[in-house]
């Protein structure tokens, strides 16, 4: 037997804590963060309609990142703190 080492990153599990999961979305303010790609506009518009019409969401706030390859700006993250749920994703 030989001893070998782990090449992966080992500390994330200790640093990251999931936010509390929300209950119902009825009456909530929900955010949608688009990466800015053209295809996200109709997709998120449709998602917004579903959230309002079928899930009773009070307000859907749609924001778009300035750079689709970089993290969301600080101002956007500060605003997101007020939302019950955020929808975002990776894609074109």
């Amino acid at each position, binding site marked *: 037997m030989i001893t070998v080492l782990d090449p992966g990153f080992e500390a994330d599990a200790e640093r990251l804590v999931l936010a509390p999961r929300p209950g119902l979305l009825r009456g909530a303010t929900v955010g949608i963060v688009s990466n800015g790609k053209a295809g996200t506009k109709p997709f998120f518009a449709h998602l917004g309609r579903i959230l309002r019409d079928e899930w009773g969401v009070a307000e859907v706030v749609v924001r778009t990142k300035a750079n689709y*390859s*970089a993290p969301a700006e600080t101002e956007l993250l500060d605003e997101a703190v007020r939302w019950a749920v955020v929808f975002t994703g990776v894609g074109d």
Partner: protein
Amino acid sequence: MRLSARTFAVDADDVQAFYRDRGWTDGLPVVAPTPERVHAMLEWAGAPPDLVIGVESVKQRPLTAEKVAVNAVLAGCLPPDFPVVAAAVDALCRPELLVHGATASTGGCAILLVVNGPVRHELGMSSAHSVLAGPDRASVCIGRAVRLVLRNLLEVRPGELDRSTLGHPGKLSWCLAEDEEGAVPWRSLGAERGVPAGTSSVTAFAASGPRQVMNEWTTDPTEVLDTVVAEIRAVMLHYSIWPGNYALVVPPQLRSVFHDAGWSKADVRAYVHERAVVRRGDWERVGKQAVVNDANRNVEYRALPTPEHLLVVAAGGDAGGFAAVIPPWLGPKSAAVTVGVGACFDC
């Protein structure tokens, strides 16, 4: 020197399967990262295990010398390679390179490393034949070490964080040493980017696949560069119109054309910068008329924001009127970064 990475006791015959089954390899055989080998790597560089080489800015992950060394051993690096690997990882972590976006993008770029300075000779790196395809042990292993760092420390695995639609072969390993002393010497890329004489450096660049051009029927440097400019314009029409860093790799035969005409790298950059221009309306000829309209048809787009955005690199085999245009991943989103090997010249 105390290591802190998790350890495993593995039968020597099972090492390959052990790393492969955990997704810790690129599929090629690996060298077992034993504590002894990792110690040797760190001792060569005089780096304590907990030295933070860089912090990847999106995940806020500190990449320690120990973890980078484990991946360098896996990739087949020898201890003298480690300072170059460490410099490359340092470059990756600079915010202007935007490694998260570059490696996660559907655009499918690779990280190209250009090595300058005395370390090229110490590691036996070749700047000649097949220079874009891993011509020697050190070039291959250093490039692969960066790939394994991305994979194992930053989760850049195909289909996971790596969302490349196609990618290109440079993603496996892409590192080259510039030919600084050949028959047709040019000022090195490192020197042009502010590295003091006698200091080795690594320039990292989020790069699309290389596009080979040929013009061996002229001794006029402007005609050679007209071929290069045509290729860059083609990139702007067929791929991305946005301006950013481009690399131009020039082997000796075409370098002699510039040398005989008294042209420096700066002259090459100025000529290409001036002429590598397209209009949005040119997209109508290549099937992209959907994004051309009366308001933008005559808007000009320049490949290079400044002449200095062209990274001119001397490298390649001695015969052949070829050169390579290496486009950026995506315009200005990522900038090339140059870092000293075992030295800091900008801190």
